[in-house]
């Protein structure tokens, strides 16, 4: 058959070869992920226990601190990000200004996180005088995730069929009524997915909170207000791994595993929501 058509290689053979190569590449990509998680589990197994998550000298302060931090981050970033996305996709008339804003947002997403940390230090900690605290950290992280939230929300808004907007406008709805009653409800799952992914990103970041929010204290680990510093997972991991020589290494590994599990858990939730969304028909 191959000679009839003049192929150098039988297409069935080349197909098998291509498929095999791609399969190997795919395994190479997934191997490190499972490798890392598996290794962390192996090294940290000794310290992993329910007690680790819930005790004061375990990870409870760090987990709750991170929970506070990302909640406040979402509270700050979500209204601004979603609002900006609605403006950009529904109201702004396309032109040089909008292009400039979009360019700025894309570039913001590429700024290294340590730069956000330094900016947060200069702006919130020093200029606003909030000191090193939960609020400063949350605002810094909010800046970091804002571009993510804006682009995810814009994408979700774009997915709402234009026909629905026109149908609503043609019934005498104002633009805002159309957005409120038709566009937003339909974009909401996508927007929430973007929010969760952003929170997952924020939960794992160290550099932005290094100078703005995190501290390490065994005596008074819980914040009383947003103006108190907090213990956060990534920062505690950093401190334990680098500055405390006498800590049981399995504790450090267990901690790393918990942090990765938290981030992964959030990502899985986001993926499930997105899958649900995709199944829905218009």
């Amino acid at each position, binding site marked *: 058959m191959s000679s009839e058509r003049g192929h150098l290689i039988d297409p069935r053979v080349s197909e098998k070869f291509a498929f095999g190569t791609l399969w190997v590449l795919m395994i190479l990509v997934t191997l490190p992920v499972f490798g890392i998680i598996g290794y962390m589990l192996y090294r940290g197994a000794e310290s992993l226990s329910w007690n680790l998550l819930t005790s004061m000298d375990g990870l409870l302060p760090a987990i709750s601190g991170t929970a506070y931090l990302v909640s406040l981050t979402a509270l700050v970033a979500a209204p601004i990000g979603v609002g900006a996305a609605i403006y950009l996709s529904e109201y702004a*008339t*396309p032109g040089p200004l909008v292009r400039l804003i979009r360019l700025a947002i894309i570039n913001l997403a590429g700024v290294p996180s340590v730069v956000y940390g330094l900016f947060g230090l200069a702006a919130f900690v020093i200029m606003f005088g909030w000191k090193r605290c939960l609020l400063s950290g949350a605002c810094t992280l909010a800046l970091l995730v804002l571009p993510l939230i804006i682009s995810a929300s814009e994408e979700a808004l774009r997915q709402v*069929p234009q*026909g*629905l*907007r*026109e*149908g*609503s*406008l*043609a*019934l*005498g*709805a*104002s633009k805002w*009524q159309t957005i409120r*009653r*038709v566009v937003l*409800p*339909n974009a909401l799952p996508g927007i929430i997915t973007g929010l969760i992914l952003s929170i997952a990103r924020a939960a794992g970041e160290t550099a932005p909170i290094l100078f703005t929010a995190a501290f390490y204290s065994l005596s008074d680990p819980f914040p009383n207000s947003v103006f108190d510093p907090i213990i956060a997972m990534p920062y505690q991991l950093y401190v334990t791994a680098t500055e405390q020589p006498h800590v049981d290494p399995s504790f450090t590994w267990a901690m790393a595993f918990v942090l990765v599990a938290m981030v992964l858990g959030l990502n899985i939730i986001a993926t499930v929501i997105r899958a649900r969304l995709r199944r*829905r*028909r*218009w």
Partner: protein
Amino acid sequence: MNSPATSDALKPEEVQSEAMEHEENQPETDQTEGPRYEEDFMSGPVQTSSAEHEQTADHDVKIETRDLNVFYDSFHAIKSVDMEIRNQEITALIGPSGCGKSTLLRCLNRMNDEIPGARVEGEVLIDGKSIYSNETDLVSLRRRVGQVFQQPNPFPMSIYDNVAYGPRLQRRLSRDEADEIVERSLRGAALWDEVKDDLRKSALDLSGGQQQRLCIARCLAVEPEVLLMDEPCSALDPSATFRIEELMLELKERYAIVIVTHNMYQASRVSDRTGFFLLGELVEFDMTTRIFEDPQDDRTDAYIRGRFG
């Protein structure tokens, strides 16, 4: 796809479409089989094509365009169009793709305002008053001039909420008021009997033809004076098309209807007057019978005979 609960709602239409399939023995099931529909009509309660009525006194002019021009940026989409649209008549706009008929339709409820770069010059008068003046209230204009789109576009909510959507934009409705509006509108769109037990079901579970009638019901709920229909049947199968056409003939007793269609048989079946557009120009505008039997312009003649477009 169909949840069990919606199968009830589908029944009447299924019955109908089966009946029609039996009638249509030819393999060709295109929408181009006007005469047989009309025979069906004769026995029904619906008034047939306006052929007999057209010699009687003209109905009042509802909409008038004067030297209407539309530009999309530098593209001249509508060129100096003058036309009159009358109450209790169906006005069909025909012509090849891109000739401007949809653009003209969208001028009448100012949906062109939503398109960046669109610019309208000239006048559109409804009941003698310009709708492009500074005092024009877009909200009330669009309530007076309803539009049905090419793709059925029910909102992803219940049938009930779809119909109540328009009235609820204006004020809070009591239960009874909303119930009343929903029933009246669905009856008006000949959909009530099929969905009355499933009003809380998602509108997306309806068939395409039912969805389109729901969109018509949604328009009727805000009590418009004019109905604009932009190829309302192009996404529908022949039996659903038949039901929409039947409905249009019913509705024209109360509304001025403008329909854009690619289907010349549809235009000749349902409309009283027909306008033929070509490259943004209104080439010919006359009684439908005249346009199809004795067109004055060679280009109209060529189009109607299928020589281009």
